[in-house]
C-alpha cells in the first residue's frame, strides 16, 4: 500500500531532478557514487571549502573538536542576527538605550538580541578553545606558521568585535566597561597623554600629544565616552571589523587547504 503512495512521488521527484532547471543548478547526480561525491564537493561554492577526500583522523571530532567550524558558524549567526538588530537599533545617545528596551519589550522576536549577545560570548570562548586545540596538536608548526599568525589576528578581531559591541546598549555596564578599557589607551607610551615619554614630544609651547589628539581620542573620537564614541564603535562593530574579519577568514580557510589541509603526523 505504501508504494502506491510513494511511486508517484518518486516519479515526480525523478521528473523534477531531470528537468533543465535542476540540472543547470546541480552539476551532479545523487551523491551516492564516488564520482558524484567528488562532484558535489567541487561544484558547490560553499562545500568546496573542504577537499573531496581527507585523512580519516583529521575528520574525527576527537581530533579537531570542530572548534574552528563552530566559531565560523557562530560568526555567521552573529552576522545574521546583527543585521536584523540593525533594523531597530539607532546608534544615538538619545535613542540607543530606548531601542534596546524596545527590543526586549515589544519588537517581534526581540530575542535576536539575546542570540546575538550569547552568540558573541560563545564565539569568544570557542575561538580560545580553537587556539588551544591548534596548539595542543602542534598544528602551528611549519608549513602552517603564517596561518597561525592569521589565526591570532582573527582572535584579536573577535575580542575587538565583542569590545565595540559591548558599548552599543549604552547602559551603565556598557559605558563604564568601555571607559575602563579606553582609559588604558590613555597610557600608551609616546602616543597617550599619560603614557611615558609622550610629555617630551613638544614643539615650541605646543604639546604634540594632548587630550585632544592622543590614542584614546582616536579610539573614542572625543575627549570622553559620548555620542562620537557610540557612533564610531557602531560603525566599527557593524561594518569595519566584520569585513576585515571575513576577509582574513577567507585567507585563513584558503591557507588551511593550501598548507595541506587538517594537520596530521608526517
Amino acid at each position, binding site marked *: 500500500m505504501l508504494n502506491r503512495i510513494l511511486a508517484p512521488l518518486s516519479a515526480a521527484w525523478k521528473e523534477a531532478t531531470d528537468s533543465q532547471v535542476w540540472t543547470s543548478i546541480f552539476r551532479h547526480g545523487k551523491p551516492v557514487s564516488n564520482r558524484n561525491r567528488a562532484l558535489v564537493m567541487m561544484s558547490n561554492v560553499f562545500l568546496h571549502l573542504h577537499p573531496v577526500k581527507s585523512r580519516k*583522523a583529521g575528520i574525527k571530532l576527537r581530533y579537531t573538536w570542530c572548534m574552528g567550524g563552530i566559531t565560523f558558524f557562530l560568526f555567521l549567526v552573529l552576522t545574521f542576527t546583527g543585521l536584523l538588530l540593525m533594523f531597530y537599533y539607532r546608534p544615538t545617545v538619545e535613542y540607543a538605550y530606548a531601542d534596546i528596551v524596545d527590543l526586549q519589550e515589544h519588537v517581534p522576536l526581540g530575542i535576536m538580541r539575546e542570540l546575538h549577545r550569547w552568540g558573541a*560570548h560563545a564565539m569568544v570562548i570557542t575561538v580560545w578553545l580553537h587556539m588551544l586545540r591548534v596548539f595542543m596538536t602542534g598544528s602551528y608548526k611549519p608549513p602552517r606558521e603564517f596561518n597561525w599568525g592569521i589565526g591570532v589576528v582573527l582572535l584579536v578581531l573577535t575580542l575587538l568585535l565583542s569590545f565595540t559591541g559591548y558599548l552599543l546598549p549604552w547602559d551603565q555596564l556598557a559605558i563604564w566597561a568601555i571607559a575602563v578599557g579606553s582609559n588604558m589607551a590613555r597610557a600608551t607610551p609616546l602616543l597617550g597623554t599619560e603614557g611615558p615619554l609622550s610629555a617630551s614630544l613638544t614643539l615650541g609651547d605646543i604639546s604634540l600629544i594632548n587630550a585632544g589628539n592622543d590614542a584614546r581620542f582616536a579610539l573614542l573620537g572625543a575627549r570622553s565616552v559620548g555620542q562620537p564614541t557610540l557612533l564610531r564603535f557602531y560603525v566599527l562593530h557593524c561594518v569595519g571589523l566584520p569585513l576585515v574579519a571575513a576577509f582574513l577568514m577567507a585567507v585563513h580557510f584558503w591557507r588551511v587547504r593550501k598548507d595541506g589541509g587538517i594537520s596530521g603526523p608526517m
Partner: protein
Amino acid sequence: MIDLFKDLVNWASGPTVLFTIATLGLLAAFRFTQVWSKTSAKVFFAVLAVFYTASMWDPDFFLIVAKPDNIPITGVIFLVFFFTWFAMHQGIQNDRRSAGEGEVLEKQESEKVWVWPDLVYTEMLAMVILSIVLLVWSILLAAPLEQPANPADSPNPSKAPWYFLGLQEMLVYFDPWLAGVVFPTLIIVGLMAIPYIDTNPKGNGYFTFKERKAEIVIFLFGFLILWCLLVVSGTFLRGPNWNFFGPYEYWDVHRVEPLLNVNVSDFFWVKLLGRPLPTGGFFAALMREWLGILMVGAYLFVLPVVMSWPRDKFPTGFKWLSCHHYFEKMGATRYYLGVSLFLMMMSLPIKMYLRWAFNLKYIVAFPEIFFNI
C-alpha cells in the same frame, strides 16, 4: 559545619592562595601524568559539579554567579578544564602508544576517506546542536540591561568586559601603560611568534605531551593560570573598591583593606636609610630609583645571557636555571627572543608575589613622566 567549609573556601580562594594552589596543581599534573586519566577526570568533574550546584544555595555565591553576563565564565571554567584534560589525555595515550612499538592514533588512521557525507554531516550536526544551545540559552537567560549610561555616576566596582578582566586584574599589580598596552601587545606578538621560536619538529599533527613538554607547560601555564584563572578571579572574586571577596562573602562597599604599598625607592631610602626621597631634577630622580633600575635591568638584560651558559658554570643549587641546550638548538636570535618573552611573561607572577610578600608597589617609579614598573 557549613560555615566552616565556607570559611575554608573563602580563605582558599584568596588571590595568593588560589594562584599558588593552581600553579602547583598544574605543575604536579604535568609531573604525575596519570592524573589525566579518564577516571580522575570523571571524579574531578563530579566534584566540581557538586561544589558548583551546592554553592548555588549560598545567596552571595548565587548573586554573583547567576548574573547573566557571568554565565559564560562558568562555561569557560567547565569547557577549558574539559578540553585541556581531553587534549592531555589523548597526548598521554599517544605517548604510551609510541613508547611501545605502535604508532600514534593519528598515524594509524591516516588513510584518505570521502569527506561527503561524513565531515559535512558532522559539521551540520554540530551546527544544529550549537543552535539548540544558543536558543535555549537565550530563552532561559535575558541579556542584561542596567540603568541608562550616566557619565557622572561610576558604579563600584566598574569592570571591563569579562574577557579583558585578566588585563584589569593585572592593573592591580602593574601601571596602566604596562598592564593595558605593553603586555597585551606582547601577548599578541608572542603568540604570533611561537611557530618561529619553537623549532621542535616533533608533535606536528598529533596529540602528544612527552615530545613537546616544555612548549605545552609554558603555553598552558600562560593560558590557564595567567589568563583564564585571572579572568575567573577578576569576575567572581573582585568586588567593590577592587577588594578581594571570597565566593561566599557579601560584596560590602564599606569594607576597607589596608593598602600600604611601598616602592623600592621608599624601601631603600625611607625604611633602610631613614632619609626622605631625594627631590629635585633629573639626577635626583635617577639617584632615588637606582636600586629599582638595577633590579629591572638585571632581570631583563643580564638574566637571559646568564641562562645561556652551560650547566657546569652554575653552583649546585641553580643547575635548573641553565637553558644552554635550548641556546644551542634554537640559535642565538630565537633563543634571546624566546627567553625575553618568557621572562616578560614570568614578570607577572613575580610582581604578584612581591606585592603579596612585601606590599611592593613599584620597582621603578618616575611618576613625573608616568613611567612606573
